[in-house]
């Protein structure tokens, strides 16, 4: 499910993956189940090497810290993440699930409308310190950057 930069496999296009995620989440109609599902997704995330858990790779949220590392290979971008919050790690997993292994340009151009459709945002702090949008911004920045912060 999660794309590793060391596999040769090529993921389905973003739009198709988005559809699948929407369908997956549609199976749960209450918040408790969705929450648990997000947690599970996080638990399956590929591990992030401890050497990337530094200031440089940090995204500071309201009550949690997230580290994201990106690898470029054949102009595709692969993401790795970890967090001190299991839930935030799960959220990262939801995004990485769709974006990891995609061509850089596709990532930058993606609208990620599925985020609103899976019904998580209504349970996230609406305050501007909302971590999700900064997470997305960061993923896109990595894709855009090409070099900085990337291991090619």
């Amino acid at each position, binding site marked *: 499910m999660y794309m590793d930069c060391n596999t040769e496999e090529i993921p389905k296009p973003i739009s198709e993956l988005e559809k699948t995620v929407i369908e997956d989440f549609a199976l749960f109609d209450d918040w408790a189940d969705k929450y648990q599902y997000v947690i599970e997704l996080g638990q399956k995330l590929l591990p992030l090497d401890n050497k990337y858990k530094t200031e440089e790779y940090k995204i500071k949220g309201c*009550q949690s810290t997230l580290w994201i590392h990106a690898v470029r290979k054949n102009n595709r971008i692969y993401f790795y993440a970890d967090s001190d919050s299991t839930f935030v790690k799960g959220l990262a997993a939801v995004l990485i699930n769709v974006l990891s292994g995609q061509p850089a340009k596709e990532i930058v151009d993606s609208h990620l409308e599925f985020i609103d459709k899976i019904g998580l945002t*209504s*349970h*996230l*702090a*609406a*305050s501007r310190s909302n971590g999700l949008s900064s997470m997305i911004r960061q993923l896109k920045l990595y894709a855009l950057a090409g070099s900085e912060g990337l291991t090619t």
Partner: protein
Amino acid sequence: MKTADDHTKTSSPSTMLTFDPKKVREDFPILQQKIFNHPLVYLDNAATSQKPQCVIDSISKYYTEYNSNVHRGIHFMSQKATDAFEEARVEVQHFINAKSDSEIVFVRGTTEAINLVAGTYGRQHINEGDEIIVSEMEHHSNIIPWQLLCLEKKAKIRVAPMNDDGELIYEEYEKLFNAKTKFVAITYVSNSLGTINPINKFIAKAHQNHVPVLVDAAQAVPHLKVDVQKIDCDFLVFSGHKMCGPTGSGVLFGKLEHFELMPPYHGGGEMMLSVTFEKTIYKEPPFRFEAGTPNIADVIALGEAIRYMNRIGMGAAFRYEEELTAYGTQLLKDIPGLKIIGTASTKTPVLSFVLEGINAMDAGMYLDTLGIAVRTGHHCNEPVMKHFGIPGTIRASMMFYNTKEELNFLREGIMKTIKLLRR
């Protein structure tokens, strides 16, 4: 100087509907009552307006369904409250056409907003020998904070005078500017006279001199379409309670470029990113200026008040108010011994007047026995009273829910007052 800026009195075609004050009145439960066996005629709207049922309901609904502290919580009600609170901020942003909701700070009212600016931006920028321009028709709330600041900083207040119609004299205002001028604080609309100032022109002049301008819009937002981008003010302040919103709600608008460089106002919860005993790092605007638990219920209800005004159609409502003003002026001006104070060419629905040989308070109290609520006295406008050489006026201030019949009652009441009290 004879016309206010065009845009203040026009409105989009979509609100050009017929306006039915009788129907609108039904939205205001308080107006349905009798006072001393007379139907209440509420003409003290410039002091505070009444609230439509939907605004009252939004407060009850908040406390009944989702009362919770905002911005800090991760639970359902806290998120719902935070959403509603931030939606109100966006509602206010659109109401005055601000560029961003980060330019909107919630405060208790106009007075607090002005004090906030004087205490932050003012303290930062005003130095010894500097000058601040205010006008002769300012409310005390737009005089005293600047006096206090000038006292602290050894700076000086300069006063832009008005003529006997109660209109600011642009040529005199122009003359006040010099190299020492550092700030202008000026009202959009006078609360005791109703004068609508051509605020664009006054702001443009200040900006030519690189002087920022604070606009007191307390009496403007209930009666005019206010557009902070069009008038290009640096700060604009108003109270919720004068525009169908609850007491305890008010707004400070400031251009983000100013807000970003301003120090915090209050220290407390939610205005900083991190706190140690050595150092505190502040949040970005607007949160930097909103320390402590805000007035959540009333901010949400202020958002509802704006939605209400949008629903009834501000364009039509404001045009109807102009009609009321013209009608009321006509009704009163021939009463023998009655003198209208404030005869500017563009006015909000305010009729201030004096009755020859009759103490204003006596008249107000007698009108009260007839169920007619007016205000008497100096209306926190002592310099205006001084200009006209009077201790105070009787002020009938209207809102779109007032009717011509009510103004007829007022006229009758004044006639009775004269009969009883003239010596």
